[in-house]
């Protein structure tokens, strides 16, 4: 199977442009009518929906930011009637509140199409067994690839994350040929496969995979491909736009094919926010061209990337996106979970036993991300017994886990130990080599 939707994936650039223009005009009109926060932005600069005549006018439109979603939490950005919304997903936002995205059935269908296109790029077809060990839940990874596999007509195995021994059993008993998980978990799985003495090619017969939700390197890809003997695709997505499948590598790996008949990408300068020419690196901005649940116009992803419009030997005519190389904000991705230092700070502020002077250490140990929060103990919380200090640490670790959705090691230090600095970035030491 070469393509999932050949008529859309290989359409001529002229047809694509006409389609994008038609959809953008329609989306802007729809958003102006139904999304109050965005209508106010357009009114503020006296921009009318009729001023947008085609995709070439997209730069005239105001940006949408994560803060817009936060300010309208939870449902203020929903454009569809409640009866037409069928699902919510959510991811972390900077202040501890979630960023919510609402989907209509049509939004879910388009997302499933894009995930199915991605799976085909990874080598899947209707006979495939797709082992999904992304987490199932508010996070879009699990359900996104699951619906994609079903849409393709393959067999989805909803293994979800964790319980590695069970994952190995399922992989070797069911003989899945396609796997979806974070790249760091893939490396971890490989080590467990080797430890368990399972043989690649007989016990484990994977031939491809979609790996995403965190930044990774070409070296990691080579390692996964070599040790599992598979074709490893980078997959991109974000819950605000839709989950995994917004872009994905084909077998030539010349950049991820961005599904630009549904999601229109732009790269802008991180300082001036002016559009940059194709090929230059900057912040990725995405406009949804079909979504009706919560359409987003020129959404600033904060991901740093570059586009590439050179033809791909695979025959797909979508624009391609080079690897994400960083963020234009201070968000960390820990084991696939978005974590903002401000969320950590708000958890610390609520606990009087510690002071909001902290340092965040991120590392990758045995291919799994580790997060350590070094924080100053409040002088009046200190007592002479180990049990009391341990109790403070245990309580804080629990609060942190529920506050940022990922476990962290808490290290307590004396007041004044943490270097005081103005810049937020100095509070983070990221030793991961990405």
């Amino acid at each position, binding site marked *: 199977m070469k393509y999932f939707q050949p008529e859309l994936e290989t359409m001529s650039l002229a047809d694509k442009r006409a389609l994008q223009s038609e959809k953008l005009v329609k989306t802007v009109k729809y958003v102006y009518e139904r999304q109050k926060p965005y209508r106010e932005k357009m009114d503020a600069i006296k921009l009318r929906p009729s001023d947008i005549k085609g995709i070439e006018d997209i730069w005239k439109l105001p940006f949408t930011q994560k803060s817009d979603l936060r300010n309208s939490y939870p449902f203020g950005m929903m454009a569809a009637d409640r009866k037409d919304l069928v699902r919510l997903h959510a991811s972390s936002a900077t202040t501890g509140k979630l960023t919510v995205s609402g989907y209509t059935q049509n939004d879910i269908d388009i997302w499933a199409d894009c995930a199915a296109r991605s799976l085909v790029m990874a080598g899947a077809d209707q006979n495939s067994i797709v082992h999904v060990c992304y987490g199932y839940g508010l996070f879009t990874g699990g359900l996104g690839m699951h619906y994609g596999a079903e849409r393709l007509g393959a067999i989805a195995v909803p293994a979800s994350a964790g319980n590695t021994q069970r994952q190995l059993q399922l992989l070797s008993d069911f003989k899945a040929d396609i796997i979806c998980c974070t790249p760091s978990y893939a490396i971890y799985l490989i080590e467990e496969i080797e430890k368990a003495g399972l043989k690649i090619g007989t016990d484990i017969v994977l031939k491809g995979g979609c790996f995403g939700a965190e930044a990774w390197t070409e070296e990691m890809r080579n390692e996964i491909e070599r040790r599992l003997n598979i074709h490893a695709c980078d997959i991109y997505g974000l819950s605000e736009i839709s989950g995994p499948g917004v872009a994905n590598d084909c077998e030539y790996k010349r950049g991820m094919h961005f599904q630009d008949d549904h999601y229109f990408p732009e790269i802008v300068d991180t300082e001036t926010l002016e559009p940059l020419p194709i090929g230059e690196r900057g912040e990725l901005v995405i406009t949804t061209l079909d979504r009706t649940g919560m359409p987003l116009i020129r959404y600033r992803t904060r991901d740093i990337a570059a586009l590439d419009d050179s033809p791909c030997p695979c025959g797909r005519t979508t624009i391609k996106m080079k690897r994400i190389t960083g963020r234009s904000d201070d968000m960390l991705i820990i084991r696939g979970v978005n974590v903002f230092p401000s969320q950590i700070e708000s958890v610390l502020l609520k606990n009087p036993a510690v002071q909001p002077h902290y340092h965040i250490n991120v590392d990758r140990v045995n291919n799994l991300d580790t997060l350590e929060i070094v924080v100053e*103990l409040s*002088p009046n919380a*200190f007592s002479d*017994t*180990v049990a009391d200090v341990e109790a403070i640490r245990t309580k804080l670790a629990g609060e942190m886990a529920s506050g940022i959705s990922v476990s962290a090691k808490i290290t*307590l*230090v*004396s*007041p004044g*130990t943490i270097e005081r600095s103005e810049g937020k970035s100095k509070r983070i030491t990221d030793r991961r080599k990405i």
Partner: protein
Amino acid sequence: MINQLAVFLENRKGRIGDCCKVLRDAGINLSSMSIADTTDFGILRLMTNDNDKAFEVLKRSGFMCAMVSLVAMRVPDRPGALADILIALDEAGVNIEYLYSFASDNGSAHIGFKTNDADKAASLLVKLGVEVL
């Protein structure tokens, strides 16, 4: 009852030495020291000839301290003396969180201990004929 200082030590090279240096520079004399350690931090408990001053100078040097009182006693110099006392305390329902000895001037053993019920412990010691310091 006597006072002791508890000092928080993060797991960093040379912290006990740093703490002792602060006391030395302030002319403070140590009479006892005990440490409770975990993999990530330790709590140093110490007694000095001037605990108030020690508290001040350590705090000024960035150490986190707490002043905590202990029940203290002179234990008779014979085999089993401490065992008898601890058994009696245990039978009376007095729990001991930790204990350690400190220097005395005449060779008998001085023991300080942290308990959940200092008053009960002290009156029991008196009843047993143990000298409470």
